[in-house]
């Protein structure tokens, strides 16, 4: 935490961290006046918003549908298979993506055959938001849907039995029992991910698009930006300023969203 100082200083190695001159908010100013600032902040927020919305919807849907599977054996099989992507590191996922999208990739060769011209995924910027969303959801779906599934298992069967006696259809049960009773869990999970909205999955954005400069406008996020600034240009002051900005914003967002939830529904608040 002492490192917060760095953000406000002009670091030079002869003076060391604590004796370098103070520069106030210059490091921040430098970042926010650069054209990168808008792009990386936009990318981070946009991607995370898509991930949260699509990811939550899909995993709740999967959890509800998993609950409809009658056979225990089949259920176990699905769970195990859905969990598979979670076990791969992002580096491996990047290799998998490459095996489909690379110059000799399975999808690439298919597209070249029907389009009759060469095609390179790693230079097309428009396709990456879709690809990254797909890959991210693909990797996390098994994991998150099991959390929700466990939540559904925790709902007392009596509600469903009573509803069945009253002649409720499956769909009605889902709408009036499962979803309302799952809401606290959904809120907690969403709050946790909203708290991390200024952070992104470094591995996804760093490895999967294979560090191709052409794709930076759609793949550069705050995390990769800070890393590249630190490792490539070695600008400690500025990368630290960006990092601090990220942390502070994330913290504020958590407080705000928790405040809103507390207003709307006291029960579901995080703290």
């Amino acid at each position, binding site marked *: *935490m*002492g*490192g917060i100082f*760095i953000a406000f200083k002009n670091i030079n190695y002869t003076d060391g961290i604590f004796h370098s001159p103070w520069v106030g908010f210059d490091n921040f100013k430098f970042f926010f006046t650069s054209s990168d600032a808008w792009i990386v902040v936009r990318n981070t927020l946009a991607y995370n918003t898509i991930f949260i919305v699509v990811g939550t919807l899909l995993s709740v849907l*999967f959890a509800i*549908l998993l609950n*409809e*599977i*009658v056979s225990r054996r*089949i259920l176990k099989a699905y*769970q195990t*298979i*859905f969990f*598979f*992507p979670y*076990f791969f*590191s*992002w*580096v*491996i*996922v*990047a*290799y*998998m*993506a490459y*095996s*489909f999208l*690379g110059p*000799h*990739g*399975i999808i690439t*060769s298919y597209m*070249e055959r029907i389009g009759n011209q060469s095609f390179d995924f790693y230079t097309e910027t428009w396709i990456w938001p879709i690809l990254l969303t797909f890959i991210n959801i693909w990797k996390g*779906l*098994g*994991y998150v849907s*099991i*959390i929700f599934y*466990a939540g559904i298992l925790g709902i007392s069967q009596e509600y469903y039995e009573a509803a069945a006696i009253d002649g409720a259809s*499956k769909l009605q049960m889902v709408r009036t029992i499962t979803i309302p009773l799952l809401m606290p869990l959904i809120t*907690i*999970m969403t*709050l*946790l991910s909203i*708290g991390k909205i200024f952070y992104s999955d470094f*591995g996804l954005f760093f*490895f999967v698009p*294979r560090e191709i400069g052409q794709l930076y406008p759609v793949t550069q996020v705050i*995390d990769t930006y*800070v*890393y590249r600034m*630190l490792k490539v240009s070695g600008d*400690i002051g500025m*990368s*630290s300023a*960006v*990092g*601090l900005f990220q*942390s502070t914003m*994330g913290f504020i967002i958590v407080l705000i969203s928790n405040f809103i939830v507390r207003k709307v529904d006291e029960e579901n608040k995080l703290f």
Partner: protein
Amino acid sequence: MLARKTWPQVIINLLFILFSLTCIIPLISIISISFSNEVDIVKNGYHLFPKIFDITAYAYILYQPVQLLNAFKVSLFVSFFGTFVSVAVMAGIAYALSREDYRFKNSLSFYVFFTMLFNGGLVPTYILITNYLHLKNTIFALILPYLAIPWFILILRSFMQKIPLSIVESCMIDGASEFRIFFQIILPLAKPGLATVGLFMLLHYWNDWWLSLLYVEKESLVPLQYMLYRMMNNIQYLTSASNMMPPGMKNADLPSESARMAMAILAAGPMLMVFPFFQKYFVRGLTVGAVKG
């Protein structure tokens, strides 16, 4: 009546089978590419099933695999040693936090969990590790930063909170020391929790590329995942000297595409073999953590 009941089932199953396929096919594709013939790949592209079965890629990477073996060694050591130490550390913290009669319980929990919400960011951490702890290019840089992960402490704490305090109190009356209670009573009772978190940590350490990306430049400390990352851009990295090529293979017919995928298989393989068997622990860990965040 029967038809109305089964149709939704069919649709659900179709959806799930479809998603299962998207989970499995990428794995099949890298396996089959690793067994494909390089010339065929360059000419016809990758295929989901190898057209010409070929194990040159494996012959190539397993011929004098000095780098590879070393990376395996680093990964194995970091995974097992790291898991052991981190579980020990986190169990200690979690136990202290689970004790109702611990005076600094609230302030310590705040100290631990506040880092989940707010931290200095990448640069201060980096400087702490490199300039103050001087851990750059040591194996501890790959272990130390993950020793206390708040989320897992949370999971362990909820496991330990289920152990009634009266057990601890009755031990105290019998004259057991705090250490004895911790090691002989609490740890055995919290075994399922320890196993769960241990498995998560094992996976976490094995799959980690982040710490090596930041702190490792020395060749002898490169773990598997980092090696794989470097190979993505430069296959030559695997055999930096061309005299390590198997006899009869020239630099020109280096099976670069298939060798990459073969490496990926070797790096992902061990965990994939082991983990489906531990899946139930994973599920349990997830659900315990989910009860209250």
